[in-house]
């Protein structure tokens, strides 16, 4: 599908970055004209015109952290359904975590995921490679083979598990320097989180759920910032969730360490109080933290201490969530709600403007993951990877209506601001007026 040449589209009256309205003309997969020129060229190109008055035009969103579940758990999500959810969420590129079955720890598996993404053609699916063989944390996977494969892997992670062995982590950080890679760490000290079910605090004590203390994240963040500084490598912290971890990253950045960090939408909005329902739709790893943490994370995101909002989109089949808390698998849907949650927690609160949203949801993740054709400025000559958002819209989340195969959204029944109206991948609409632009076969 992606080889079909894109026609011309004139986005009329939209406001790039929510700033001054300017027409944008897309043709041949690129932005070919903007402003007054655009309308003139549009006639010549016989362009489709879309009325975007009052809408915000953003660079296509880039998710540095999603679980598309294929291969291995196709009852929860596939590359096709995950791609559809991503496009509807305003994404044009998604990084797929390697905790599949088999794990994406060889060139063969990452190329398979990459190829599946291209065949679906709704977003660019960029595989992340496992750091260690089978994600077992004992032996480095063939990282260079994945880097030089057709999938051109640059981000490596054992996400779901921590690379807890400090020596192995050091070696991984060093090794990927040869091809400009980055290690994305799932920061969880395993011994401090044996059997952990939720954030360790007063509520875990009274609910009788084993605690996942903030220090178990912060101990790894501190260690890995020091390691990355010592060996001069790039480190990325996945789903940073505590105020203390944000302070550690800020201090490491101040020292000049090449560390970046992401926060999930749910950690910006929800707190451990959700666990009081014992409904495992709120079970996630790292766990929902305290209200003070959500405020610190928002502030860190606004200040640039945290670079990226990444979804940690984690679909789970119903039987893995309709259980007692301890038996449920951790994780939440995120791709279709991320932009709205960021609008609620960051834009409506005045912490970020839309240019800031473009930075943390498109430009920074593309830069960290080295995706040259994404996260680019909205400017003539740039790739036409764009999303068009209605900032005034409000919508109610219904898990059953999301494109994902799974329904485990923690925002069920909640009204959220801002809705994605159009998404363009290389000039071709993947979302038209809020609906999928093409059929997806799961």
């Amino acid at each position, binding site marked *: 599908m992606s080889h079909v040449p894109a026609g011309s589209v004139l986005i009329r009256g939209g406001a790039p970055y929510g700033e001054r309205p300017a027409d944008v003309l897309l043709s041949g997969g690129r932005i070919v004209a903007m402003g007054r020129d655009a309308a003139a060229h549009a006639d010549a190109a016989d362009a489709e015109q879309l009325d975007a008055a009052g809408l915000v035009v953003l660079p296509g969103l880039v998710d540095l952290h999603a679980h598309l579940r294929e291969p291995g758990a196709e009852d929860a999500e596939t590359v096709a359904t995950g791609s559809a959810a991503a496009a509807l969420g305003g994404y044009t590129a998604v990084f797929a975590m390697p905790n599949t079955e088999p794990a994406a720890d060889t060139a063969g598996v990452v190329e398979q995921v990459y190829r599946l993404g291209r065949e679906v053609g709704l977003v660019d699916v960029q595989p992340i490679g496992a750091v260690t063989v089978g994600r077992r944390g004992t032996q480095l996977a063939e990282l260079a083979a994945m880097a030089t494969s057709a999938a051109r892997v640059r981000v490596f992670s054992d996400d779901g598990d921590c690379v807890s062995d400090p020596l192995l982590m050091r070696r991984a950080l060093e090794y990927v320097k040869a091809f400009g890679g980055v290690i994305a760490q799932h920061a969880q000290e395993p011994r401090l989180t044996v059997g952990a079910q939720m954030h*360790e605090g007063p*509520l875990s*004590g009274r609910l009788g759920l084993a*605690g996942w203390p903030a220090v178990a994240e912060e101990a790894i963040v501190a260690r890995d910032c020091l390691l990355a500084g010592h060996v001069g490598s790039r480190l990325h912290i996945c789903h940073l969730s505590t105020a203390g971890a944000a302070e550690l990253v800020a201090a490491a950045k101040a020292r000049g360490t090449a560390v970046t960090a992401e926060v999930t939408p749910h950690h910006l909005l929800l707190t451990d109080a959700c666990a009081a*329902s014992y409904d495992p739709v709120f079970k996630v790893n790292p766990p929902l933290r305290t209200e003070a943490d959500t405020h610190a994370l928002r502030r860190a995101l606004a200040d640039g201490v945290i670079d990226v909002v990444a979804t940690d989109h984690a679909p789970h089949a119903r039987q893995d969530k309709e259980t007692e808390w301890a038996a449920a698998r951790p994780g939440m849907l995120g791709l279709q709600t991320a932009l709205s949650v960021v609008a609620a927690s960051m834009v409506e609160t005045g912490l970020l403007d839309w240019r800031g949203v473009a930075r943390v949801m498109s430009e920074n993740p593309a830069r960290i993951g080295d995706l040259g054709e994404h996260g680019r400025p909205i400017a003539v000559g740039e790739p036409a990877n764009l999303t068009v958002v209605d900032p005034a819209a409000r919508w109610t989340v219904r898990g059953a209506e999301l494109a994902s195969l799974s329904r485990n959204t923690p925002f069920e029944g909640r009204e959220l601001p801002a809705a994605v109206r159009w998404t363009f991948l290389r000039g071709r609409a993947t979302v038209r007026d809020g609906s999928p632009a093409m059929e997806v076969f799961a």
Partner: protein
Amino acid sequence: MTSLQTSLHTSPHPAGRPADLAAGEPFGTPAAGGSPTAAPGPGAADPLPGAGTDQMSRARLPRHLLSAADLDRPAAIQVLDTAERIDQAMAGREVRKLPTLRGRTVVNLFYEDSTRTRISFEVAAKRLSADVINFSAKGSSVSKGESLKDTALTLQAMGADAVVCRHSASGAPHRLSGWVRGSVVNAGDGTHEHPTQALLDAFTLRRHLAGGRTGSALDGRRVVIVGDVLHSRVARSNVLLLHTLGASVTLVAPPTLLPVGVGDWPCAVSYDLDDALPGADAVMMLRVQRERMDGAFFPTAREYTRRYGLDLRRRSLIDPGGIVMHPGPMNRGMEISPAVADGDGSVITEQVANGVTVRMAVLYLLLSGEGAGSEADTGERSAEPAVQYGEGESR
């Protein structure tokens, strides 16, 4: 914080529509010496001796008993009073059976081995003439991988009026209560709560410290609870219920066996047993599993016993009229010495007997009121539990 975020918080304590049991109504007229099976059905002509309508406040019981926090003070006293009356009613009977729950079905859904608690509930239900189904995880569809939800739907289809649930996962009875229409009684969930144990403990305490007088509570009484509070559902329920009843509770444990945030609980906390015991009206010893050593909670069983075991010397520190309690099963020689367990003031076997009576009262109050557990009640959740923890965590 946005309203979105705060409005997502839901209370873990469903209240449901309360049983609308007016004072004195539950027991009807005194038994006229007839056969206990002569009564026509639930709630009708209960052959319990006359209830003092003037003594009983109009208490409201929730539809489910999931947490000791589901019981406010009048409801807790009502359970204890009901248990007293049941005890009196049973005392004079040749056939130890009341017809109260005839035609009702009580399912004991036990996912954990707990012979004593299951038998206690089974005897309680049978003495109320309910049909009892024991559903244990072993040798059932559960061992074939059936989920809790599917099991719940099966029980629902079979028309269970009450489900007594023991589960190793904290919150499992909460989940169950959303899937069945009958009443759910938490018979111990993970490291969360065990409300009927707390009720039988309160019943035992009231008998010894307040003469078992109906309508009375435990105001001003001092109860010391010792041991593995971190993993103890008994401790959590007792702290909540005894506080509701006006007792002052002191938890004693090594710091490793106290949960984070225990400072916000409605009780005092101490690391020193010898300091906490003087003047106590009761001391409740919790079972401490030797395996906790492997989690580095304490160095050796010997050191634990030395610091936190109840021996005769420590027994002598509590109030002369005080009592010694243990929810069982005991590790003799670990948290309690045999001389104390079998000695003066030990009410440990009495607790077991009281367990049946109190569970009869709970099943009776949940099931005999026509309003309780009705199908129209879809489990509306109350905003707040009856007992509040401290506010220290509300960040």
